[in-house]
């Protein structure tokens, strides 16, 4: 008896898997003999499949009449009997038999014997198929885990081994890759003149490809940062280097900033990365700068911005693994919650710890981390202002902008108050300065910028020997002179003056000096308070 037994290809049943392909790839032709035939493929839509699936036993091929290419092929190959191998209702193979060597027809006993054989062989064959399938899946998993390990090694090898120790600053970082390693990275780059470059980035994609792009980005960025001063120019250079070789559908988001530790100046550019947050006395603010991700297209421009981290303020750089972490119901942690956390918690390493605690509460302690999580914080010590007092030239403590919108003078006065408080101004004089800053900001927003929110008021706080200067600048330098009329309450009560018009009067009476300057474009009001003048107003311990 000649046997042409082969399991046919499972793809015909529409259940092809990676493991199945692996099985097929490892299949070798059955040892050949002169009367052994090649296996016959049966197309998934061939009616022979359905027939064999429902057949109760061995099928007489010659007697079968179906419009079936596979049946024609079987007949041409000389197959006389086809014995379906069915396991748990699924056709998993067919035992094809040629003519008996005795040249007699198959008897009823032969067919019963073959049916019994098929009934016992089918489960065994199925077990064999499953074992091979599982072996192939295990091999695939092992290859995958090996690749992930390689990706982890690449990424961790390129992260900073230690963080800088800066006088008056606390620098902290946290990096935890997801199981399927993403493309997060951060870096700290020592630069000339005691400046420090800070980088945070995220490569699209995961695993080895993302790790390789990350490594390339980091290397180019490090080299560019040493040659170029401006963060925007550095990102432009990196973009030009990455574009030609960037794999399709991959790109890198990246924020690069340069910190001057002695002044708190942080100049930065952003290639599409999540916006950093600065913790201020009033809460938290985003640092915005425009720019496309790296590696998408050449010739990109990266806007540069500068912030000044005042004593007590801190900066958080973060990756999207934080804000895009989901809770069990599918809700994201989100930017507003992170921004609120920055405002509420202390800065530095404690901020990172608190955010991680919030994240665990959000996602649940047993949830697998979805994406890499990276955070870097720069926190300036609250006492860092003291050494600058009375040591010579003017020293800028902070510069910030306030959108021209009603009520925003409160933001300005509160932030200035927080900056000036450590300088030792007594409580009563601090309240006077707050009122003057509030009035000056209000005037700038109204008379200078016409309450247009896209025209912000700029506030700078500077110190020099024993005095503090607050400069409030608007864009109304070409506007006519403001509030020239001295307010007279009797004239106001008599209806001879309008009730308003107290702003400049209050300002001049609240501070030691007030100077106005205009250059045709900008108008600046400078408020001066002497730090050693305690005679003007006795400290009555007053509160607003």
């Amino acid at each position, binding site marked *: 008896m000649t046997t042409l037994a082969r399991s046919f290809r499972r793809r015909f049943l529409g259940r092809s898997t990676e493991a199945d392909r692996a099985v097929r790839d490892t299949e070798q032709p059955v040892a050949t003999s002169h009367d052994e035939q090649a296996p016959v493929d049966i197309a998934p839509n061939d009616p022979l499949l359905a027939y064999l699936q429902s057949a109760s036993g061995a099928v007489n091929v010659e007697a079968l009449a179906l419009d079936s290419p596979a049946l024609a092929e079987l007949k041409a190959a000389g197959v006389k009997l086809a014995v379906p191998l069915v396991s748990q209702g699924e056709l998993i193979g067919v035992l094809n038999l040629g003519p008996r060597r005795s040249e007699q027809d198959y008897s009823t006993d032969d067919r019963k014997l073959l049916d019994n054989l098929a009934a016992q062989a089918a489960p065994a064959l199925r077990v064999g198929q499953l074992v091979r399938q599982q072996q192939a899946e295990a091999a695939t998993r092992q290859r995958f885990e090996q690749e992930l390990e390689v990706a982890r090694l690449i990424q961790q090898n390129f992260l900073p081994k230690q963080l800088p120790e800066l006088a008056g600053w606390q620098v902290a970082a946290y990096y935890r890759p997801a199981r399927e390693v993403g493309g997060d990275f951060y870096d700290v780059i020592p630069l000339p003149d005691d400046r420090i470059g800070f980088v945070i980035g995220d490569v699209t994609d995961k695993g080895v490809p993302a790790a390789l792009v990350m490594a390339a980005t980091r290397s180019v960025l490090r080299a560019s940062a040493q040659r170029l001063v401006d963060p925007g120019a550095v990102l432009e250079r990196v973009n030009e280097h990455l574009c030609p070789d960037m794999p399709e559908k991959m790109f890198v988001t990246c924020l690069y900033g340069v910190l001057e530790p002695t002044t708190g100046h942080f100049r930065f550019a952003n290639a599409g990365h999540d916006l950093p947050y600065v913790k201020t006395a009033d809460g938290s603010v985003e640092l915005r700068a425009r720019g496309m991700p790296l590696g998408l297209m050449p010739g990109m421009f990266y806007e540069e911005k500068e912030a000044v981290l005042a004593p007590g303020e801190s900066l958080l750089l973060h990756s999207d693994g934080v804000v895009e972490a989901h809770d069990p119901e599918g809700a994201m942690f989100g930017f507003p919650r992170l921004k609120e956390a920055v405002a509420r918690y202390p800065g530095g390493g404690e901020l990172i710890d608190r955010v991680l605690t919030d994240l665990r509460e959000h996602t649940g302690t047993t949830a697998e981390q979805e994406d890499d999580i990276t955070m870097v914080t720069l926190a300036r010590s609250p006492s860092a202002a003291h050494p600058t007092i009375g040591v010579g030239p003017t020293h800028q403590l902070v510069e910030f902008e306030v959108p021209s919108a*009603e*009520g*925003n*003078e*409160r*933001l300005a006065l509160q932030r200035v108050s927080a900056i000036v408080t450590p300088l030792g101004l007594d409580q*009563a004089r601090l*309240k*006077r300065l707050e*009122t003057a800053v*509030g*009035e000056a900001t*209000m005037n700038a927003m109204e008379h200078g910028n016409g309450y247009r929110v896209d025209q912000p008021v700029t506030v700078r706080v500077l110190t020099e020997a024993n005095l503090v200067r607050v400069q409030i600048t608007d864009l109304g330098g070409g506007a006519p002179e403001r509030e020239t009329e001295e*307010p007279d*309450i*009797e004239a*106001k*009560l008599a*209806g001879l003056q*309008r*009730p*308003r*018009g*107290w*702003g400049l*009067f*209050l300002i001049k*009476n609240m501070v030691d000096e007030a100077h106005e300057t205009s250059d045709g474009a900008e108008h600046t009001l400078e408020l001066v308070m002497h730090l050693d003048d305690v005679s003007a*107003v006795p400290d*009555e*311990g*007053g*509160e*607003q």
Partner: protein
Amino acid sequence: MTTSDVTMPVRRRDGAAVIDLQGDVNGRAEHSLNAAWEEATRTTPDAVVLNFETAGYINSTGIALIVGLLAMARARGISIRAYGLTPHYREIFEITRLADFLAINPDEDSAVRGAEGATHA
């Protein structure tokens, strides 16, 4: 930042109407302060007492609102008294000479009674 108007309650006590200023006294307080004034002077009181104990930030627009109240009070012959001012705002009331036209009292009792402890009658 001031975000919304607040209601300023009016209480009557011993012939005086007491307005409890709530929150920031600035441009956004205009509507609620004028409404409180209308309520306080619906029947002419002996005096209107401004309670600043619960007031927050007062800016120059808030000063102008109080000047407006003083002008209305003068037109109707109603006296205005104040209490609850912090030393800082008391200083501002003096610099602007608001204190020349309303009496600043140390507490509500003296403000309602009038004159006692006031800087100006």
